[in-house]
């Protein structure tokens, strides 16, 4: 079940969402997104993963994690987007960065999560 995979990878429980929209209110890329952050949660909830996989949003998300930071229900939509993005990468069989490459690119000041998601994006 792909929905379960997503939940497992992201650690997100979409049922905790109370649909307040604070994620979308916080999102700097809101206007560039076809599926808005808060919709991501309902898409997962409704198991409409195909739409997410095709979505433009996963490329537009800056991984700033404002939505993760501010979500009052600990739903973390940003992690969800990141997870879907990762699934796309996996589906395409794209290669991920090799460990040697990663160390060179590392800046110890940056949040780990940001690095990982950013690398995934720019590797394509």
């Amino acid at each position, binding site marked *: 079940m792909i929905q379960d995979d997503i939940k497992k990878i992201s650690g997100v429980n979409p049922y905790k969402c109370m649909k307040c929209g604070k*994620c*979308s209110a916080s999102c700097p890329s*809101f206007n560039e997104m076809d599926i808005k952050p808060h919709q991501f949660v309902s898409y997962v909830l409704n198991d409409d993963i195909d739409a997410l996989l095709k979505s433009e949003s996963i490329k537009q998300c800056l991984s700033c994690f404002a939505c993760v930071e501010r979500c009052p229900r600990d739903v973390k939509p940003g992690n969800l987007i990141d997870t879907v993005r990762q699934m796309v990468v996996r589906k395409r069989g794209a290669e991920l960065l090799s460990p040697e490459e990663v160390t060179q690119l590392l800046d110890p000041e940056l949040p780990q999560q940001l690095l990982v998601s950013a690398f995934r994006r720019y590797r394509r």
Partner: protein
Amino acid sequence: MQRIGVFVCHCGSNIAATVDVERVAQYALLEPGVVHAEDYQYMCSEAGQMKIIEAVKEKNLTGIVVCSCSPRMHETTFRNAAKRAGINPYMVEIANIREHCSWIHKDKEEGTEKAVILARAAIAKVNLNTPLVPGESRVTKRALIIGGGIAGIQTALDIADAGYEVDIVEKTPSIGGRMSQLDKTFPTLDCSACILTPKMVDAAAHEKINIYTYSEVDKVSGFVGDFTVDIRKKARSIDMDKCTGCGVCSEKCPMKKIPSEFNRGLGNRSAIYTPFAQAIPNVPVIDRENCIKFKTGKCGLCSTVCQAGAIDYEQEDEIISEKYGAIVVATGFDTIKLDDFDEYAYNQSKDVITSLELERVMNAAGPTKGHLERLSDGKHPEEIVFIQCVGSRDVTCRGKEYCSKVCCMYTAKHAMLIRDKYPDVNVTVFYIDVRTPGKNFDEFYRRAVEEYNVNYVKGQVGKVAPMENGKLLVQGVDLLDNRQILKEADMVVLATAIEPEAGVRKIATMLTASIDTNDFLTEAHPKLRPVESPTAGVFLSGVCQGPKDIPETVAQAGAAAVKAIGLLAKDKLLTNPCTAQADELLCNGCSTCANVCPYGAIAYEEKEINDHGIRETRRVAAVNTALCQGCGACTVTCPSGAMDLQGFSNRQILAEVDAICR
């Protein structure tokens, strides 16, 4: 040998759906001592109780086991039934097969098996039960109210009107509480002070009510009907008998720049001050931390100007020890700290305020004399944004997971009042849900929208950023439109979550009243005993128990008063007969049990003992059953097992253990 009857309740389908009640009864019949077993729809009903009574008479039962809901629910019911049937009420044991079984186990096989075991344990226990007779204790006909807000005042008035002495302990210099800080009240828009002040005056004037302001509860001991409380009257530095309340001292005080607590820090007060004009008592207090006289030894101006000679710099804290029969907690609430909500810029801009601060801004006696203006520059605002659920319904460590309940309504009130007084101001409310259960509440909210054209947007605000032009850039979302909204606002008002007043934890500990994870006091039963704490003789009034608005608070205050009156009206209380008892033949006289007794209920006496023919004088423990509350601490500390607890004896508990483990 006991003759035990087992009665298995279906509780409609509450139990019967997941527990095969007939099988439980069949199995129970195989247990030692059981001579009768049956199941019935509702054991707690009159018909159900009659079944018990009939069975007792027919089968000559000596013990009863009821397999039903929690003993916290119906133990008393079935004990009374036993009494009616003519057997000792303490010959009844309950097997909790609802809360601890049918409600949590879905598989009927599993549920039934567990119910059988729980019944078995109760039967094993009842086999060892002995008839117990409660003792009596006296009731002090005086009540203590902790907290002098609307909840405390109302409770005090109701109890005093019934003819009992009441003391109110309030930690601030005046009674009145949060309600005195409010401007108007929903849904009728009465002026808060106009309806509160008369009650304050009534309380002050009531011959049965004694008010200790600027005082705190220091220590509580005793138990229901007979509490002893130490009240600390903090040094006010004013002789309350001499002060006339003329106010000259405050006017002349050179320390005037101290943020006023009453105005939520938006205005200033002097070091010697009366918190607000209608304060009761109308006697100032010296804030020693900020007073020049106390800081440097110089000044003393207030003392010079006071014609009554009421200023007393030497005054010290005074401890008053008083006995009470009942205690009502009415400690109220505060708003949560917003330090962690950086996105709302509360700490960055003076124009981002909480709703309680807005109350002061709108109030004629407030820092802006009731004019709606920006606190940063005094300008008249054109665009105001309200943000709902700030910290409420928030499961992260920043907020509270509960709904604060009052925000939707006061925000509608604020929006309406602003649009009414200043039609030129645009008001936008960002909300997640609008919750308006209550008489005339939804109508009130709809008026705000339909008559006053307040702009309600379904969605949250993600960020508030102060701009260079002095305005606030509000970035929100309209979920119905699926559109992000950017608004330049002059003011932002945060519907901040409320939480119990900080001191409540300490008070709860002193009262041994339990408290939940959010620091709200726990009620004895969420539905059936909502104004009583599980600790006998302690009652709950107002927001200390959970978020509520003024009408609800007043209603609960009245209910708490009735419960307290019901207690005070009794001359004597029956005490719990489940007390400790020492077996004199086994007692070593070592005093270890007395060391752990929280009630000082164990004394020692030299006694002539006949131990199977050996006569000698021994030092043995004697339990004062009027003082013993039956915790059992002594029983475990006693190495020889001489100390035992009636109703929860070693052998009874072991019998339950054996029955469960077999």
